[in-house]
């Protein structure tokens, strides 16, 4: 059973679902965040379980509780664990209790005055982050005290609109680290496995990821082992079940826990490709009470995978989102190429939602092979009617820093700045 808003009536997922129910009009609060309509849909259509996807209510502990109250299995961790780990501010405290290093930061900030005081203590620059958040939403860099009022107001408003939870917390901004995350799966019998790491350092200035890959290039085995050990220890400490991702900031040999996303991630396909696993299927199996059936030693990483997010955005205009009709859509194919999408020729891109149109994933026996396949796939991709990030992704893949695997989260913003400076002739 698929749910959709009136704006998504013609979406591919609606067309391909066995059944589909409209849950509201285009605006998110009245459809995809409309808990009564979502629960009502599940009940009257005889559903047993609810998969929240990513975004919207995927990390909303209250929604998970409401599902349970109505006899519906929420495909994800238990509400108490979502509260402990999905609430970003609380998670850091829990991780510190588990002996995991965290970035200096705060709990939930109840006011802008509290934010100012905290920033003074931590030391600028700082990062305001949505506690229920992800995807860069509700996140603001604050360089100085003069910027705090506007940043706090803006971050809380965006968090409220995106996740129905406007609470924010603060972290020390570590300049240009690598964003490395670890995929975990845990069943209800105490088995926890880590499924490798993903390097998600290619991020837009808004901190939204654009390109992800697995495994992370040039990660030392010491750091890799440390990441997996911390992720596994954290999951066991909180009694985590189902799929999740622990995100870390890595600066050299230093590793800091950043946050845990208690859901499936957008970039999960790169892990699926290198571990030959269907993570969503594993989520459903775990939620149905099945044991994983394998342990860490049974898992074998093979090859290399890269994902490029194809968004309806204009990279030359600060990645401003685009809406409109896709007059022509052609997606690539061939060995090692996977495309996850909801669009097709003639599809409408509504203005209400995240701008992602498709994920193109390339797998190869080596990183070089994966890059080559991705470049061919992107060149074969045609999307007309809106601006997209295809050209931007190709440009990134061609840079020496990306090809050498020596990039961090400052890489793309610096590239864009250099391009802008070159375009205006300024130095």
């Amino acid at each position, binding site marked *: 059973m698929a749910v959709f808003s009136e704006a998504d009536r013609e979406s591919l997922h609606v067309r391909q679902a066995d059944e589909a129910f*409209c849950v509201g*009009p285009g605006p998110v609060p009245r*459809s995809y965040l409309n808990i*009564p*309509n979502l*629960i*009502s849909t599940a009940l*009257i*259509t005889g559903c047993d379980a609810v998969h929240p996807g990513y975004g919207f209510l995927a990390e909303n502990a209250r929604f998970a509780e409401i599902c349970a109250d109505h006899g519906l299995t929420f495909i994800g961790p238990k509400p108490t664990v979502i509260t402990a780990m999905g609430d970003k501010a609380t998670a850091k405290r829990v991780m510190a209790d588990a002996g995991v290093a965290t970035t200096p930061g705060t709990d939930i900030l109840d006011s802008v005055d509290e934010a100012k005081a905290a920033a003074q203590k931590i030391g600028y620059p700082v990062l305001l982050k949505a506690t229920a958040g992800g995807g860069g939403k509700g996140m603001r860099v604050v360089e100085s005290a003069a910027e705090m009022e506007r940043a706090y107001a803006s971050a809380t408003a965006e968090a409220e609109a995106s996740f129905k939870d406007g609470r924010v917390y603060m972290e020390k901004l570590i300049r240009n680290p690598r964003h490395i995350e670890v995929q975990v799966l845990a069943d209800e019998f105490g088995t926890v496995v880590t499924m490798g790491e993903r390097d998600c350092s290619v991020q837009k200035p808004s901190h939204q990821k654009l390109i992800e890959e697995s495994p992370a290039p040039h990660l030392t085995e010491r750091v890799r082992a440390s990441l997996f050990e911390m992720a596994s220890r954290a999951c066991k400490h909180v009694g985590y079940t189902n799929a999740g991702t622990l995100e870390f900031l890595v600066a050299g040999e230093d590793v800091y826990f950043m946050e845990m996303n208690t859901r499936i991630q957008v970039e999960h396909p790169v892990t699926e490709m290198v571990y030959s696993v269907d993570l969503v299927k594993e989520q459903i199996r775990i939620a149905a009470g099945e044991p994983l059936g394998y342990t860490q030693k049974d898992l074998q990483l093979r090859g290399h995978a890269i994902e490029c997010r194809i968004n309806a955005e204009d990279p030359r205009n600060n990645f401003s989102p685009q809406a409109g009709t896709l007059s022509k859509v052609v997606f690539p194919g061939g060995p090692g190429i996977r495309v996850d999408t909801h669009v097709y020729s003639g599809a409408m891109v509504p203005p209400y939602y995240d701008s992602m149109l498709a994920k193109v994933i390339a797998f190869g026996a080596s990183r070089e092979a994966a890059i080559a396949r991705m470049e061919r796939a992107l060149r074969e991709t045609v999307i007309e009617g809106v601006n997209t990030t295809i050209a931007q992704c190709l440009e990134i893949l061609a840079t020496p820093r990306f090809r050498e695997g020596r990039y961090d989260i400052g890489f793309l913003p610096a590239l864009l700045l250099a391009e802008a400076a070159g375009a205006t002739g300024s130095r």
Partner: protein
Amino acid sequence: MSDEHHPSALTARVAGLAELLAGTDLLRLRIEREGEAIELGRRTLHRDEVPDMPGDLSQIDGAPARLEAIKSDLVGIFHASRPAVSEGDLLEGDRELGYIEALGIRNPVRSLGAGRIVSIKRADGEPVEYGAVLFELDRG
């Protein structure tokens, strides 16, 4: 006289145009060709021209319907009101036509004014999604 101008052919042409006009909401249709013209107009009915007025809209044949859809604004199970309304019923004002049961809560579906029930689109006990058309009303 050509076949085209024969009275029987002309009658057939006029009948065809009348049928065409009836299928639209046009009030007047005029066709001119080679110095000849055929003009058809829809007769506007006045209250004192129609027997059994006011109120008996069902007596007027061919009057264009101003259909308004009453839609569900939530997800749930549709239930007809008691006593149930029927197709053709004339509503003199706002009244409850049915309700949507969602999460144990009864959410009335109202006509929001007078009109004639042209069609009932959902059966009692049927699940309905957001935006599902429940009734079509002719506001007259």
